[in-house]
């Protein structure tokens, strides 16, 4: 018993010590705010600037509680953040349905901001749900064609110029830039892009992931098949891009978003499709000489736009104060900082002038206007309310992997993907009566319910 008592006392002492050294609370009169976002140096810059501009508020970053499930569960339990980032339309829908995203339509109007007019279209689905605004865009991006000037100089190939051009024009250049050593190993490839860029080609060939009403996956359309066939041809017909096996051979280590950036930075590829946010990493490569131009296009001159938004927790007791951060996001200081840090492009169109894009610390970067000029061509992400986006993404990515590994033709893979995603839609409809009614309204087609004995059945 004595030993137990001693240990209990020791634990109590440790608890008192932990209590004593806990982080200091905000000073009297200062309201603390917690923002769940990624631990990016850019965020720290924003926090410093915001706190300086708002001495009555103290914004803190919480990078450890990111992830939708944590944000939702913590917010519903009353211990959620005041502000959190949203990475796509599907996430926005989930936050709204969970009742934790605050409808700030009226508040933004009161601030004199109209996100539909003032921000880039590509990121509107990250903010608007059923016509209401639930936050403000944090940054946006449309990919361009990056090129490594050293590789071009080594081969004596002139740099590409910034103009609209097609893949047919680009391929001969990429073939010139793909160089093999005598033993057959590749010295550098002409082009590289990360797997998630596949939607870009879909837009350029006029394809869609889902029908406009979201009721059907349309990856089996001739346009979608042609787009994916082209990505396969870049690897196996034109031989200007690394296959997945080549990528694994080139890569010494993985990591999110790293593959193409590292290849470009290390001169293993001559050109790459990527966003302005790549600069956050590429600026660390000493002596790297880069250029950027509009990327080639397919039958349609259209690109893929993406980004993220910041939402206010509807259940936060400090949501009025948190709204100040959204107001800050509409202003010049925030937008200039985003542009100068190159964390994508600033969300406010009017704050993307040449004077905010250039960073005096990096005078050699003469390509920032390219990123702004292609923004209006960025198509927003397509989603379907009738399917779990992550489940659909998993199905599609397996089929795309088979295409990229030349294990399946683009036509077969896209048909399989469409079939499996449509089966997922059918599963959702069998389980969700309200979605089933919505689907029936859109398609004027009655879906048999599980109660009527069609458990295993039917595609939508």
């Amino acid at each position, binding site marked *: *018993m004595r*030993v*137990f008592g001693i240990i209990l006392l020791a634990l109590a002492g440790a608890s008192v010590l932990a209590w004593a050294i806990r982080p200091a609370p905000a000073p009297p009169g200062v309201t603390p705010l917690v923002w769940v976002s990624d631990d990016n140096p850019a965020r720290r810059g924003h926090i410093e600037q915001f706190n300086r501009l708002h001495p009555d508020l103290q914004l803190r970053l919480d990078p450890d509680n990111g992830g*939708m*499930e944590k944000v*939702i*569960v913590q917010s519903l339990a009353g211990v959620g953040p005041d502000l959190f980032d949203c990475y796509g339309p*599907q996430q926005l*829908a*989930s936050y709204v*349905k*969970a009742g934790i995203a605050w409808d700030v339509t009226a508040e933004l109007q009161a601030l004199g901001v109209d996100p539909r007019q003032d921000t880039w279209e590509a990121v509107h689905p990250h903010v608007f749900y059923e016509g209401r605004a639930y936050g403000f865009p944090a940054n946006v991006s449309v990919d361009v064609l990056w090129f490594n000037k050293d590789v071009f100089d080594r081969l004596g190939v002139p740099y590409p110029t910034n103009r609209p051009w097609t893949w047919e024009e680009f391929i001969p250049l990429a073939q010139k830039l793909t160089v093999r050593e005598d033993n057959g*190993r590749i010295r550098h490839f002409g082009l590289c892009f990360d797997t998630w860029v596949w939607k870009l080609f879909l837009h350029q060939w006029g394809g869609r992931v889902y029908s406009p009403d979201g009721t059907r996956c349309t990856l089996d359309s001739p346009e979608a098949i042609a787009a994916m066939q082209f990505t396969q041809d870049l690897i196996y017909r034109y031989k200007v891009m690394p296959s*997945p*096996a080549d*990528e*694994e*051979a*080139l*890569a*010494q*280590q*993985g990591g999110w978003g790293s593959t193409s950036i590292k290849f470009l930075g290390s001169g293993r590829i001559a050109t790459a499709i990527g966003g302005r946010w790549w600069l956050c990493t590429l600026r660390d490569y000493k002596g790297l000489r880069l250029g950027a131009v509009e990327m080639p296009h397919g039958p349609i001159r259209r690109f893929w736009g993406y980004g993220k938004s910041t939402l206010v927790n509807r259940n936060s007791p400090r949501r009025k104060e948190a709204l100040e951060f959204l107001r800050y996001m509409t202003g010049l200081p925030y937008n200039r900082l985003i542009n100068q840090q190159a964390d994508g492009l600033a969300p406010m169109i009017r704050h993307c002038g040449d004077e905010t894009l250039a960073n005096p610390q990096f005078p050699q970067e003469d390509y920032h206007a390219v990123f702004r000029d292609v923004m209006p061509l960025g198509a927003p992400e397509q989603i379907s309310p009738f399917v*779990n986006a*992550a*489940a659909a993404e*998993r199905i599609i990515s*397996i089929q795309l*992997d*088979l295409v990229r*590994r030349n*294990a399946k033709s683009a036509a077969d893979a896209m048909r*399989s993907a469409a079939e499996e995603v449509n089966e997922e839609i059918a*599963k*959702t409809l069998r*389980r*969700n009566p*309200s*979605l089933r009614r919505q689907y029936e309204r859109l398609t004027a087609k009655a879906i048999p319910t*599980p109660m009527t004995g069609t*458990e*295993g059945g039917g595609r939508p």
Partner: protein
Amino acid sequence: MTRAPQASTPPRPAARQNTTAALLFLAPNFLGFLVFTAGPVLFSLVVSFSNWNLQRTEPFGWIGLGNFRELLTDPRFWLYFLNTLYLMLGIPVSIAGSLFVALLMNQKLRGIIAYRTLFYLPSFTSGVALMILWKALYNPDFGPVNAGLGALRDLLGLSAVELPRWLGSMTNLIGLHPEEVRLTWQYLGVGARDAIIIMGIWTAIGGNTMLLYLAALSNLPQELTEAAEIDGAGKWQVFRHVVWPQLAPTTFFVVIMSVIGGLQGGFEQARIMTGGGPAGTTTTLSYYIYNKAFTEFQIGYASAVSWVLFVMIFVFTLIYWKAGSKELSY
């Protein structure tokens, strides 16, 4: 004079105090077990009968056996179950290797403790670090594995033979199709799944199984081996007819634990080395459960998969236990 039976003697105050202290010491751990292990396990059983989705894409509801019915017709579930079984092909090799190393480590040599430590190193090195290292080793163009195989190939004059692409390849030793539960020659070869098996064997050979065998070997009665040797038995005969039967209880335990570990395994490898690819060929049931629960947020369905996995493990253990108990005579 007779003494009252000890059981009926009232406990002395000191003994009662000891019992109370023991219970108090056990209580936090037991409460922790109830709250953080038993509770969630039971909770997962309950939610496996629901359509609970963290994204709230559908209203919460009880769907009875709906998840289990869906699971049985889910082709991915069966593919990933097959992947799990395939990765378990390394278990017999691991066990045999562990026994061999234990026999070596059981010799009375100078510096044997240093050898034992060296062989055990992979077990207490961070798994993540090991996997990143193996990823580099398997690099098809620049990795030491293919460099060695390439040199051997050239030595044998087989330059036409293509070297394995390891983690980037869907081929496998029995020709499993990546999308269907069937065999095809097109996928015959050495690929990502085999790379993971080889790494698993390397990690396991000097690990806990070796320690268990080593402990069992050091507890074997010496007189049996000495008697066999006096009777003229050679080393192999001593091992086959004296040592191996004595190790049966350890082997029984090791097989059960390895199969349980194998059915639950593959998560770290998929997460760190392959992302479950190429084309899902290294996705095992545990990685599928993770993806369903924490990427697709289908908690109800993921719980159902977990419970089916539990039933598989339980049934295997039960059968093996019944069969093994009859065979074991030690």
